[in-house]
């Protein structure tokens, strides 16, 4: 695989289970050695401790010493990063990740979300240039996710490069500006999120009730199936989209138009047939659709 992550970007890695996302992250950090090829991180080898000193990492399943308290854990991680432990700075960091009230409690009594927050605090120690986070919001409640997302966005704004592996596609979509889709150890698609999510030239149109369907179809419009009424047991999405199938969404059509001139020509033909336009919007694929489109929608597809 060949993947380039621009400095200062927020990069998301998604793919099905077993795609090799965590293995890839481990190879970026020198925990796993590539059988062939080279890995360059921050302009050097991940084997170099000086390079790793500039990386903050949160593993997928962080195993923390249960009998310790969070300040002691942060102080040890700071020492291992070659930093002088700074109790005041650590307290501010714990406050930033929302653990200010838990500093006197043993880590063993923390919830999964609190452990993730502590792991994030440890990753942020020493102001790393690159943050590699493997499922950072796993186990964190929705409000906590907002806080974590805010922290990650603040870091990106500071110029930190963010490399995020999350099974929560909405989170990847909100935080990252670039995404790579990985499957079977290969990068299937990679690029800016809006480029990947672009559906091409398809528009979704809603006409007022009473529009002549035959005339609209003759004008290039395709009726959209209503999932609530049209989905058949065992039927696939493509079959449900077919204009001839039953259970269409009332008045909703799609039309392919390479540019606005072609779109307006199609709309003119529709209006000429007596159809009244109610709503028009460009169809964009969300990240889930991009992932399913790239990997295929079979069972087991998950980020």
């Amino acid at each position: 695989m060949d993947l380039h992550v621009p400095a200062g970007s927020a990069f998301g890695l998604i793919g099905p289970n077993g795609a090799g996302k965590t293995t890839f992250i481990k190879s970026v950090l020198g925990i796993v050695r590539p059988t062939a090829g080279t890995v360059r991180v921050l302009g050097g080898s991940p084997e170099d401790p000086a390079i790793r000193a500039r990386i903050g990492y949160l593993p997928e399943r962080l195993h923390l010493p249960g009998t310790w308290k969070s300040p002691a854990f942060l102080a040890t991680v700071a020492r291992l990063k070659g930093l002088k432990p700074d109790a005041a700075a650590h307290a501010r960091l714990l406050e930033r990740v929302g653990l200010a009230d838990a500093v006197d409690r043993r880590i063993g009594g923390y919830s999964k979300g609190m452990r993730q927050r502590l792991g994030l605090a440890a990753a942020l120690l020493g102001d790393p240039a690159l943050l590699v986070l493997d499922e950072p919001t796993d186990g964190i409640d929705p409000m906590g996710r907002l806080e974590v997302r805010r922290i990650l966005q603040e870091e990106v704004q500071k110029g930190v490069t963010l490399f995020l592996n999350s099974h929560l596609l909405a989170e990847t979509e909100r935080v990252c500006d670039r995404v790579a889709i990985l499957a079977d150890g290969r990068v299937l698609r990679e690029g800016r999120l809006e480029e990947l999510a672009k559906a091409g030239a398809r528009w979704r149109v809603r006409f007022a009730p009473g529009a002549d369907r035959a005339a609209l179809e003759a004008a290039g419009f395709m009726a959209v199936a209503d999932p609530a009424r049209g989905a058949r047991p065992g039927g696939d999405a493509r079959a449900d989209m077919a204009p001839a199938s039953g259970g269409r969404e009332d008045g909703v059509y799609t039309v392919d138009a390479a540019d606005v001139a072609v779109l307006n020509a199609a709309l003119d033909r529709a209006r000429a047939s007596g159809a009244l336009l109610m709503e028009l919007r460009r169809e964009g694929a969300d990240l889930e659709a991009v992932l399913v489109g790239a990997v295929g929608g079979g069972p087991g597809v998950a980020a």
Partner: protein
Amino acid sequence: MKSPVFVIAGYVLREAASRKFIMAFMVGLTLVLATVALSLKLEVVDGALAATRLFGEVMRSNIMSVDVALRPIYRAAAYLVFYGGILFGIVACSDFAPGLLSPGRIEHLLALPLQRWHLLAGTFLGVMTLALGGTVYAAGGLTLIFGVKTGYWTAGPLIAGGLACVGFAAVYAVMLTTATLVRSAALCSAAGFVLLVGGILAGFRADVSRYLESGFGRTAFDAVTLVLPRLSALASRAADLASSTPMEKGSLGMLLGGVLVFGLGALSVGFWHFEGKDC
């Protein structure tokens, strides 16, 4: 800035301090030493032990010089510290390395700016600091109690304790190397027990070999025990030192050399394997 080896050693010691099992052992050791200190009364007249009272009861014994009277006690204590210490160490320290190398912790540690060998060296140093601390506490406490009560001071028990630590170092080197192969506390302690038993047999290899039928079995026994550290022989030398018994010239140096070479060899295998391992 502290070397990562010391930080990892501190990590291990902090983990050890939180173990109830280890704390209970230290409390138990303290209670034994306190009981000996409070219940034993020794009356010394002109360097000779005139009378002994244990829990107020007079113990019948001949009048003899203090150093001679204390020999069996120090000898027994040396064996107890040697074998008891190694056995306790095998059980108590078996999960330090597998814990440090466990999924979710090893990735985090290896992503930090330290070398892989720092992790193993730090774990080894932490465990050996723990072993040395426990030994000094037990042997030093005993020496202090008898020294204060009799006025006879000897470093023998402490040196014997040091030899016990050397023996444990060889055992723990094998346990640490095992941990790099399999992250299992049970298998680590099993490897430690096997080496302890093998080391005891190796100390008596000439005697044991005589009782074996000549042929493949005896040859295999001789070959295997040849490379094992002579732990029982080291325990005997430790007891000799503790009881100020003269020993054969040069025998201790050879024994220590053999144990150290074995321990370093086992550690080298572990370091080499861990260096090339994907975690």
